[in-house]
């Protein structure tokens, strides 16, 4: 059902866990399938995302896509990170099963929420 890359990220998730004093936190849930993904970010003075962590309740695809997103985001400027879409996350994983593409691929949206939280705190 899942390709090797998805399974590899599922089995060895990058950046899973909590973060102390994050600069931004975002949480997105999918009502239909019940998945919930939470993203924590640390942003430096230049606007670079120095650290990112995730916690996800969901299936293998949900965990793998969260892991992939954190890998894509780390070291990127917030202006660039905000442009990342769920489709890009899935593409970087070499594709997800069609039925998983939207319901279990929430990390990009959770990141957007975290970035908004970060920007709100800057004001």
């Amino acid at each position, binding site marked *: 059902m899942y390709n090797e890359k998805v399974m590899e990220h599922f089995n060895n998730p990058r950046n899973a866990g909590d973060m102390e004093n994050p600069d931004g936190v975002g949480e997105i849930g999918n009502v239909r*399938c019940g998945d919930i993904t939470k993203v924590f970010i640390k942003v430096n003075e230049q606007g670079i995302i120095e650290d990112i962590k995730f916690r996800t*309740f969901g*299936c293998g695809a949900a965990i793998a896509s969260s892991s992939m997103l954190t890998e894509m985001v780390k070291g990127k400027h917030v202006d660039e990170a905000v442009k990342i879409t769920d489709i890009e996350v899935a593409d970087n994983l070499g594709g997800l099963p069609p039925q998983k593409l939207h319901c279990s691929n929430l990390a990009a949206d959770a990141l957007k929420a975290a970035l908004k939280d970060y920007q709100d705190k800057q004001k």
Partner: protein
Amino acid sequence: MDRIYMDHAATTPLDERVLEDMMPFLKENFGNPSSAHFFGREVRKALEKAREKMASLLGATPEEIYFTSGGTEADNLAIIGSARALRNRGNHIITTSVEHHAVLDTCLALKEEGFEVTVLPVDQYGMVDPNDVREAIQENTILLSVMYANNEVGTIQPVEEIGKIARENNILFHIDAVQSVGNLPVNVEKLSVDLLALSAHKFYGPKGVGLLFIKEGTGINHLTHGGGQERGKRAGTENIPGIIGMAKAMELAYSELEEFVPRMEALRDRLIHGCLEMEEVKLNGHPSQRLPGNVNVSFEYIEGEALLLSLDFKGVAASSGSACSSGSMNPSHVLLAAGMSEQTARGAIRLSLGRHNSMEEVDYVLQVIKESVDKLRSMSSIYQGKGER
């Protein structure tokens, strides 16, 4: 450690002794039992011998045994065939909310033909109350379909009592007994049953073969049109190697039942207790009225599919209650019918034990489950405990 198979409710490996009996019918004895010549006659003899053997094990007569392609086809033939045959007597069918889809969806499909369907609720253990059956009976009720034991949570239904109610009310009684042979005694007399469906690959027989017991005198409309095999009830050349294998598998299941059941129960109970020692775990299904090899537990805060993948990675084959279909993760209809919340139902996994499992495997699996659950919880967004750093 090698791979560990704990998904016997999905399918079982073929028994060596069964394969041995099947081999001649995959090679030299290839004839069509409907042929008049020597090749056909030889196979016909073997077919009828297999039928007699299974009939006698089930407490039936050979004329009451009809071979099909498996449990699903047997359930379809039983339900659709009898409903259509009794259409002039009534149009009401009673079934339960925890049936396999082969029964539930078949009953519901009959609504399109003008049948009314009552789907009975179950208690927190997934068990049907015979009083609910009694109350659901109407003047126009023609058929009652209840499974012997549930494939997901292993709950054994009070089918004998329900059978008596059916008999008292002159209603046909169908049992989906697919999970039963090899795990429970199955005797059609004792069960007061008119129709009973079985599948060979659930008891170490081959895939692609099953049977429907149809009590003598029960009207059934055939669903397949063709060569009139199985006394007109199921057209299509019989799956001879499959039927021969099914007979041997059933013989072994019956003769080894007494030895098999306590051994499975010991493994099952150790596995259940080991799981329940972990935090925030719930046993699904009935605590005592359950299949000897069935373990179904919900781990809070994680998704069954993720746990299943994690176990698979460590060489343990299990099954999860939820299935992802058309953009939504559907928790098991059985667990929801038993009143479980969607979130807890999504954390369910089933481990179904079999002949080749050992205590050492159970202990290893418990260790792997614990590691996997801890890991998945540590990254779960709804778990309040400490996350990984």
